[in-house]
């Protein structure tokens, strides 16, 4: 028998319709982008092994993981704080074996869980991103309160969300990365889109770089 084809499907297969939505105008107030083909590894230090975990991370990624809410950007990965003595490693998905490679580096000192398919990454930017975010995120995302590299574990529509601020967009506006549970993504995309319609939305998807 012939091999089976294993096409992948995003959780936003139906919800995300690329292009303009909401109020028309020259510039969209909000840009929404699903980042596909991501790799996410949840790293949790074994009991009493936090220092060694940090050291292993430094060795593997060239940076230490954040000790407090924040996102540390390395050359090939971003380490996002997700709780005491734990962090998420976000990177672009490469060939299979990525998880095994990271697992090896932390063997015996941290517990790892592959979450690449457990979460959906949505990026929100544009001049009105903060106004749209204010409708579904209770955090203060002002420059002063949530500067570049800030991160938080918070909620959206009563479910969990990891949010962190990456580099500003090419338009000079702040960009926020939102990691949400895959099964909720379709629903949350509608919430986010509906919240943004009055500002005009440009929706798209992109491969993780």
């Amino acid at each position: 028998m012939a091999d089976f084809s294993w096409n992948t499907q995003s959780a936003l297969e139906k919800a995300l319709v690329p292009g303009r939505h909401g109020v028309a105008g020259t510039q969209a107030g909000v840009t929404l982008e699903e980042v596909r083909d991501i790799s996410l590894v949840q790293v949790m230090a074994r009991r009493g092994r936090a220092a060694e975990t940090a050291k292993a991370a430094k060795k593997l990624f060239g940076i230490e993981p954040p000790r407090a809410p924040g996102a540390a950007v390395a050359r090939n990965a971003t380490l996002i704080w997700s709780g005491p003595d734990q962090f998420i490693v976000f990177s672009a998905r490469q060939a299979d074996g990525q998880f095994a490679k990271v697992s090896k580096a932390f063997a015996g000192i941290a517990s790892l869980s592959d979450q690449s398919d457990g979460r959906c990454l949505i990026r929100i930017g544009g001049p009105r991103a903060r106004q749209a975010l204010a409708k579904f995120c209770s955090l203060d995302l002002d420059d002063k309160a949530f500067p570049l590299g800030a991160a938080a574990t918070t909620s959206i529509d009563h479910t969990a969300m990891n949010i962190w601020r990456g580099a500003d967009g090419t338009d000079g506006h702040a960009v926020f990365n939102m990691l949400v549970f895959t099964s909720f993504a379709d629903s949350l995309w509608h919430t986010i889109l509906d919240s943004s319609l009055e500002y005009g939305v440009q929706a798209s998807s992109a491969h993780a770089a």
Partner: protein
Amino acid sequence: MSGYSRSEPLARTAREEANIRTAVTSASQSHRLPGDGMIDRRSPLRFSFDGKAMTGFVGDTLASALVANGVKLVARSFKYHRPRGIVTAGSEEPSALVEMRTGARREPNTRATTQELYDGLIANSQNRWPSLRHDLMSINQLFAPIFVAGFYYKTFMWPAKFWESIYEPMIRRAAGLGKSAELPDPDHYDKAWAHCDVLVVGGGPAGLSAALAAGRAGSRVILVEEDTLLGGRLLSDGGEIDGMDAREWLRSTTRELVSLPNVRIMTRTALFGVYDGGTYAALERVSDNVAMPDRHQVRQRLWRIVARRSVVTAGAIERPIVFPGNDRPGVMMASAVRTYVNRFAALPGKRLALFTNNDDGWRTAETIQRAGAHIVAVIDPRREVPAQHRRLVDTYDLRVLAGVVSDVKGGVDGVRSIVVTNNRNGQTQRIEADCLAVSGGWNPNVGLSCFHRGKPIWREDIAAFVPGGAPEGMATAGAANGELSLGACLRDGHSAGAKAAAECGAAGKPGEASKADEEGYGIAPLWHVKGKGKAFVDFQHDVTASDVTLAQREGFESVEHLKRYTTLGMATDQGKTSNINGLAIMAEATGRTIPETGTTIYRPPYAPVAIGAFAGHHREENFHAWRLTPSHHWAAKQGAVFVDTGLWKRAQWYPRAGEKDWLESVSREVLAVRNGVGFCDVSTLGKVDVRGADAGVFLDRVYINAFSSLAVGKARYGLMLREDGIVMDDGTTSRLAEDHYFLTTTTAKAGPVMQHLEFCRQILFPDLDVQLTSATDQWAQFSIAGPNTRKLLQALVDPSEDLTNEGFPFMGVREVKLRGGVIARLFRISFSGEMAFEISVPARYGAAMAENLMIAGKPYGVTPYGTEALGVMRIEKGHVAGPELNGTTTADDLGLGKMMSKKKDFIGRVMAGREALVAPNRQVVVGVKPTDKARRLRSGAHVVPRGEIPGPKTDQGYVTSVCFSPVLDQWIGLGLVERGRERIGEIVRIHDPLRSEDYEAEICSPVFYDPEGVRQRG
């Protein structure tokens, strides 16, 4: 967020359209003054009230436009249907409530005083029949003597059953306010968060000063103002600030505030609640100023504002005086008269009388005279005209009477004359007038500062309550703080703003406070002018002074009792103009002082908030978030019918052409599995990665059975108890490595179990090295079941994989390679009782997996099945699920008592041993099947011994789960039955009073199908 005149025409009847068109050409505004005020005369607007076409201007409220059109009668009162007019010019309005818009957008009880005029506005009066002028319901007035406080309690006591069927509907028809729309609201609402250092509530002179001081100092400031414009009383009373005209100062101050990037100004936004931790709630009326919201725009937005400090500069509300006839249309608050004249260039009357007990009221005389109208008399109960007003009296040759207004004569058209009683000799005289301006003094707006049970403090010098004990982080300033002069408001606001900014660590300079006169404010309190005729305290709920004294005579002396007995202050205006007068009259009746009498408790919301605003985005399909399985879109393409299970949408069955009902589809799916092979998406089961050196020990403690002894590569069914010994949840847990278990939960309990496990890990067993991660969404998991399962799988997996009983025994678990290269996890577990596997792949392959299962299983007639077929097969097999794990059952009740390990401790072990939980007569899980094979069994039906009369004493349990078993060709079920396991074979009575059914059934083993378990081990 704001923006003028985004008006769009809305659907109107042809006649209304025609009426409105005529109105543009015929100037209807008989009471419009020549001056500009704050309206834009270049922008006329058309509107209709009770079908009559009129015009107004941009900048008008509905109330000011009605005033300009000479309309006095705008409403009928709640109980007596008395004619009512416009009393105030603000959000405290008790009387001028109208129905706005039509059809699905009809909105009752809208205050005409806060409704901005827009082109095409349609408003109607309410609570009248057949018309506002000729309201037959006003016959209620004749019965006024019996419609007193406590009327309902006294009159409709007996017979009790008449209350719901006759009295209440009758009263509701006769008394009431507007009618809400009967169609779903077509508009959208949303909710948003805002954050700041300093929240300033109210944009009058004090609020502007506070915002400016805090803004200059560098704080992040939010200034909320319920009005369309900033300025507060400056818009109506003007004045001189820093040597400039108040409006000039307002312009320059607004300019500076707008220029500060750290200051956010939110107009049309009313703060209505104060909550813990510096959280405030406000309602923004985004599109109430247009007929229909713009596309993609909301009607209203609910704001939750988190502020480190707040400065409440919410101003003060002018107090009416209670005297006979004080509710006639044309009796208006003095400050409102000034607002209509100065801000809206609309004259409430041509011959006005002024009744004031304080100096501020006197300002009205000048406003009216300057507007070119005539003041017929100023009535002031004080002996002497205040020195500062003598000049006014001389300039305009005012007729000043030392006395009180003791009656108001008039009809539906409003005031025609007033009766003045002389203070010294008690003589009365009648004075012709078409409007009476009244001022009883000012009540600082203490509401917000009292929402956390702060008790307001009485200040004798201004005869009013001022804030006392505001919530942490809140300061009050300006008129809200009892500072009633412009100069003091500016100074007080500035200093409160500067202080709040400093407390938030702002290092900048707040600048100097603006300066204005600190004019004196003299007042001689006057609450109630006694006399014949109804004197109203609460206009909206028709509560009179005699109702208050009646309540006192009947023993309802506490203000809280007074409120409930008379309904004083319980209307939509929450007594903003009536509460203080009511308690002052009560104080007088009981011989106590006002502070001794006290105020009722202040609670949010300060102003009415539409339920739609609280719901926001969360209505209809967005009522709550939904979760989709990885194969959802595939299943939808197959025509699956979905069911909501918790937040999940799950395929319930897959109907095929020609099937007449769900039962036919479900039975086909069951038989397809039993005789061939089928698959079902079971990704909704909760999945938890349990890792760490102590993972096994941890699981031993949370499950009743052992897991540390489980071999790597094996799965085991586990049951966990709550601390109280009752079953919490069940599921299979596999050991994937020495230090890695993969735990599954039921769909319903995934969240609670994860919480429970985290609690155990962090609080109960912090010494254990164990880490938990939810992996529910990571995996697409399918159950593949039926005698042909292995054949199907063999086509799917790499040829090197051995799936025989030897190579993959029952309860075995391991990773397998699939054709095409994807790695999957394969679990040999069965819920259906058939030869079955569960296979899981990363969620992104979920849709492909469903498609490939169809391809691989095509030669065997593979059938996707839904949750109904899943349920049928588990009942046939006697597996317990949600209806049996219902929070009342023990492990033994479920027939799983033997699983409870005696070699180890586990959560719930001790409490499960309590006497009642091990009693021999407990209800336990058994099978139930009707003796008549054609009979449908229903869950919820009660089990009663044969020959007994059903009742609490004979009740022995109930049916928990039912299904039609296509294998047995009859309805079967599981039930919880007293001593059930000892009664196999007994015929019992099934009693179902809900569906009026009564029949017999046999108690049997819960395992209806393949009791030896041969098939699943196949």
